[in-house]
């Protein structure tokens, strides 16, 4: 029989209809070498306490549902393993910098609204009939934006970003990375329409190059790169307005 090691999991609980403020609750959970935090949470919900609420789905770090603070770091629960966490106790809390709806569930609506606001779709540089087939795009052109297209919207980067924590108007790393993904796509001609968001105070200029967002990103999207290279672009855009009045976006 496999050894039955157990670990103490401390989870920050909060119920909007019952609690004034969040409070810690402790559970003892058995685990083996490949138990993930998500599996441990599912064990708690299934066997010990069905009232623990959290989001999850794919279990393979692609749906972006299970972001939370694990021992103080923003991580995906499904690919964080108990074997890798030092200490005999694990502290789990809802993703930082977001309001807690309940237990490990945070408000996501504002993030999604920001995502929708950047025109996150291809605005073709030139029209092309379906019958003419696909736009041509070389592997080199694809490489210019592909990395930024792999964002799973898990929001760990927002939990890592102190600027966002201090000012939730900041558009933020993930959404700005997606904006850059479209601007850098050779098929896209919508840059001028998206620049107001880049140029705004809440756009790239709220970023202080802390860089933690890129550290925690589970997909190596490197949002810090997307945001910070746009500072030069934004500055250029600003000066061009003076030089070429026609450059002003519609």
């Amino acid at each position: 029989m496999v050894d039955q090691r157990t670990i103490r999991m401390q989870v920050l609980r909060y119920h909007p209809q019952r609690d004034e403020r969040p409070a810690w609750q402790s559970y003892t959970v058995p685990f083996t070498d490949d138990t993930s935090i998500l599996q441990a949470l599912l064990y708690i919900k299934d066997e010990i306490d069905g009232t623990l609420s959290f989001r999850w789905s794919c279990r393979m770090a692609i749906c972006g549902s299970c972001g939370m603070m694990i021992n103080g770091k923003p991580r995906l629960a499904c690919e964080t393993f108990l074997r890798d966490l030092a200490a005999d106790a694990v502290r789990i809390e809802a993703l930082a910098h977001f309001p807690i709806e309940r237990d490990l569930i945070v408000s996501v609506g504002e993030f999604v609204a920001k995502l929708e606001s950047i025109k996150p779709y291809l605005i073709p540089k030139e029209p092309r009939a379906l019958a003419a087939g696909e736009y041509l795009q070389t592997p080199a052109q694809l490489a210019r934006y592909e990395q930024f297209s792999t964002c799973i919207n898990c929001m760990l980067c927002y939990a890592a970003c102190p600027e966002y924590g201090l000012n939730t108007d900041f558009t933020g790393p993930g959404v700005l990375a997606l904006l850059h993904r479209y601007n850098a796509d050779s098929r896209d001609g919508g840059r001028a329409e998206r620049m107001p968001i880049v140029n705004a105070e809440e756009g790239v200029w709220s970023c202080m190059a802390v860089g933690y967002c890129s550290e925690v990103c589970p997909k190596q999207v490197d949002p810090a790169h997307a945001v910070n290279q746009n500072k030069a672009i934004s500055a250029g855009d600003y000066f061009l307005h003076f030089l070429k009045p026609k450059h002003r976006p519609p």
Partner: protein
Amino acid sequence: MSDAAGARRPYVRSMRGWWRRDPFFARYMLREATSVAVLAYALVLTVGLVRLAQGEAAWNGWLAALRSPWAVLLHLLLFAAMVFHALSWFEIMPKTLPAIFIGGRRLSAATITRSGWAATVLASIALCALAWWWRS
């Protein structure tokens, strides 16, 4: 009994003491704090410039002041801060540049950072050599 379905009541957590929650943030704050060191050293040099304009006696007085043990200690601390400032800036520099492709391969962030260090070291050596050659 079940509750009546209610309005949401999201709980907003405080950001107080945020930079102490993670070593990454502490390091970031230290990085930002080195700008104070940069400012301090700029002031020292400005004072030196003023003294230079005031004549040889003032200039020598300033140089003498710089040789005091406290001044030396201050300069060592400022130097350490400047080095950390430079290193942390080069760490973040690749993020501020667009992706650079040379011969089809992308220049890695590590390469860009190391180029920054290399340029700094070379420039420092060149300046020190110049200063040594010009001493008198």
